[in-house]
């Protein structure tokens, strides 16, 4: 069965949420309301995880729900999995404000 692909939640988003497992190499349908785009998955995107729907340069915002959810910690290519390995939150970071003693 073809993958149901992923959902974009707001216009400004540069990631979409997989609503099905997306196998590497799949030309996945990515929906924003009635609009459907096709994004080729560069790697496995499991159900519930995020796929980049644009190239996201290191240090720029990853946008979901139309709002920043953190910054890319490396260059992210369209079609890649976006998760803790390449996306860093900016909030509540005691590890950054306490002089890096930990």
């Amino acid at each position: 069965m073809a993958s149901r692909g992923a959902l974009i939640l707001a216009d400004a988003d540069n990631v979409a949420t997989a609503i099905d497992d997306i196998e590497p190499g799949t030309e996945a349908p990515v929906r924003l309301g009635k609009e459907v785009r096709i994004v080729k998955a560069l790697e496995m995107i499991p159900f519930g995880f995020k796929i980049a729907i644009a190239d996201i340069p290191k240090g720029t915002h990853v946008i979901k729900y139309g709002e920043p959810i953190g910054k890319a910690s490396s260059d992210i290519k369209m079609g890649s999995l976006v998760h803790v390995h390449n996306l860093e939150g900016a909030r509540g970071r005691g590890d950054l404000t306490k002089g890096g003693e930990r």
Partner: protein
Amino acid sequence: MNFLGFERPDGSAGMRNHVLVIPGGLLATKICEFVEGVKTILTADSGSGRTSHDRETVARTLIGLGRNPNVASVIVHTGAVGAGYPELNPTRIADEIAQSRKRVELIDVAKEGGTFRALEIGVQVAREMVLQSSQLRRQPSPLGQIAIGVKCGASDTTSGIAGNPVVGYLFDRIVEAGGTAFFGENTEIIGAEHVLAKRGANAEVSRRILEVAAETEERAKSTGEDIRTVNPVPENIAGGISTLEEKSLGAIHKSGSAPIRHVLKYAERPPGKGLYFVDNWMSLGSIFAGYAASGAQLVIFQLGGGGWTGKDLLHTSTAVVAPLMWTTANRKTLTMAPSCIDFYSGGVIENGDSIEETGEKLLQTVLGIASGTLTKVETIKHIDPTQIYLKDSPF
């Protein structure tokens, strides 16, 4: 749109019809064991060795549980740790509950000649109260009589796209009908506080929302830890959530779209009807009892669960007097714990069902539970202890 509820003297309507014995401890537990239909709070948070601020939180929790519409009548006893503090004075607690004009009896352990004599009297008073309350019949009560609280947990990305928005629709329907709805979790608005603050009913509410987020973030930073090692919890990350901001932006969908009338303290009673943000802690051992003390007759746990494995029996209840219902939008979670989940909203993801039609179905389920249908975990007698949300250090 109505449910069948128990009319209370203060004009509220109960979904359940309990007798409550407080504070917790041996006396209360033993009365519960002897008498059918009696509840108590199971907690080690007695208020002893706590600041006046925290003692007041304990008192507010006990009083609020007593005033909850699901409670027909209340026994307050003097045999508790902490009873010597003015905030926790049993007469004060009994008097404040009695303002709701329900029946409240005070049992003075010393006057009765000790714990065992007090137990005998407590059992007889509780039996009499249960018999009396059993004579009440459910009556049609409008939707606007409902007060409901929600927590989202083990969140995954199904929570933000389906589970929480469906609960948010329910919240909107209840608030539109003149009812009351509570959401909270102060850590889980960090990164979404600017979105939430726009929904403040006035500038003061918006300011308080931002302040709660800032205070919580400050406390998080003062630990010297990366909050990502605490929250998002490992289950969130295993479920596809990468950052606290992402979790928060998904989490706030459970509040619907109504204006936020006020920011409440844990267990605080609201000044009227409407939607409230509660400055509370996300723990399921804490949050539900707080909502019940604020007046919620029903609490919802909106579960992601994508990162969970093998949890076929979910947490039963710590809302003391309010039933707990579980919802999820994750098929895997539903399959994992079918005997605990009351409502499934995954059709939004799987079939493209609308949030509105799914939310209407949830509303019907809630009206059924409000009218007496048991939630699935209500069939289990095990009660987990409540952690009252205390902010200060113990001394």
